[in-house]
């Protein structure tokens, strides 16, 4: 079984703390960071795989530090039929998963780069971005 993927969300008050380092040092966990991003409001999002005997203690530590932990069970996908390639999402998407291909000006979606923040789901004018559980 592949390790569980989880999403960690850091508020701006804790984005500057070496929290991941503690997971390794104090809980002996193996981490594989898949995506990491700090947005304009200094809020961090990290998608990682986490394994180790002290997995549950590590998770408890994260929550105790104010990190919001979610399983990566949700996935954002694009309804290709609905998307009009208007482009309104391309400078809002914080991880660059939605971007404009030039010179065709077609909107592309690289789901591997998606951090499931779901802001595109809210702002898409034609509701082409959907969440799957």
């Amino acid at each position, binding site marked *: 079984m592949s390790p569980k993927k989880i999403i960690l969300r850091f508020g701006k008050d804790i984005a500057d703390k070496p929290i991941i380092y503690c997971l390794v040092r104090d809980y002996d966990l193996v981490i594989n960071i898949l995506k990491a991003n700090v947005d304009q409001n200094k809020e961090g999002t990290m998608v990682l795989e986490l394994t180790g005997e002290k997995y549950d203690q590590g998770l408890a530590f994260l929550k105790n530090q104010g990190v919001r932990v979610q399983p990566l069970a949700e996935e954002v996908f694009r309804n290709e039929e609905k998307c009009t390639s208007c*482009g*309104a999402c391309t*400078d*809002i998407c914080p991880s660059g998963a939605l971007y404009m291909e030039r010179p*065709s*000006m077609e909107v592309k979606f690289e789901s591997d780069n998606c951090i499931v923040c779901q802001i595109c789901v809210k702002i898409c*004018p034609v*509701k082409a971005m959907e969440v799957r559980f």
Partner: protein
Amino acid sequence: MAIEKTYAEINEKIKSGKAVVLTAEEVISLVEEKGITEAARSVDVVTTGTFGAMCSSGVFLNFGHSKPRIRMQKVWLNGVPAYTGIAAVDAYLGATELPEDDPCNNNYPGEFRYGGGHVIQDLVARKQIKLEAVSYGTDCYPRKELETFLTLDDLNEATLFNPRNAYQNYNCAVNLSGRTIYTYMGMLKPNLGNAHYSSAGQLSPLLNDPYFLTIGIGTRIFLGGGVGYVAWNGTQHFPGIQQDSAGKSYGPAGGTLSVIGDLKQMKPNWLVGTSFLGYGATLSVGLGIPIPILNEEVMRCVSVTDRDLYAPIVDYSEAYGQRIPGNLGFASYAELKSGRINLNGREIPTAPLSSYPKAREVAGILKNWIQKGEFLLTEPVKLLPSYKDEIASRTLEIKGI
């Protein structure tokens, strides 16, 4: 000798399958290669296109008479009210209309998930629509309420009539404030975090006929995936040439069109219900206009490129809402489409709100219709006012009694 072609001559060529038709994108390289004169000689029609939110859109509906009859003082389609202050069983459903129970911006920013534009798309998609109507009852119209379901094909008429479409040019919207704002130009990040524009630029209909040499009342167009016509100038039609404070020219802006067409022959992928977070609901419209190459001057106009066309950069956190005149400068559509503009030495990421790929598709479909001889050009009954008419916009002053 100067090149002069008439509408009749061009239509004869279309009918015989000999017309040379290019899109406004394709014609650019031809003019760069062969020059204006040679291009004007060889090309008969240039097609344009745009696809974007056009709020001043809506549809006149006639429901037919129930037994017993009702005058329909108020109606709702899928819960969205339509205007009925006209004859019995006629209504006008506007693209930005919202259900009365929509929370709007009470839960800021509101989602505006379903409005008049969405009903129009569902109608065109031949979905079943719930119709509710109430009235006060008269001797000739005794019924006081009804509730039924209908599809577009059940209606006598459904006439798309959009009072203000196809804006010649539009602002590039930015946010100078310290908080995120939600506008009809999308979500604008604080402190010049992004810049949104909304024009097909070099493909846009009225940027290819900036002086209204060919587009006028009766011009046959691509509208919502079907055929439509220019009915009149649009509301707020103030065609002009943009200038900065030093008097430098930044190209055309200000023209708008009023357009009309039979909704029953339009398509749901070209009339798309649209929601702007924190702003409202609307309709995205696909619209394209063929431009007959009557002479070299018309060819010069359609050969315009994104490098020659500019959008004024406007702050939507204050200047727009407070109607403070002026702008923060101009950005060319070539810069805007590159993904970054430079403002006061700062690089700002850009994104469009109107779809350039869809604009290109509209121009391509229109080109195909003309090449196949299915779509003939119409000579306008009357041309529209141009920059020469110097129409000034009026503002609304707040007066006491």
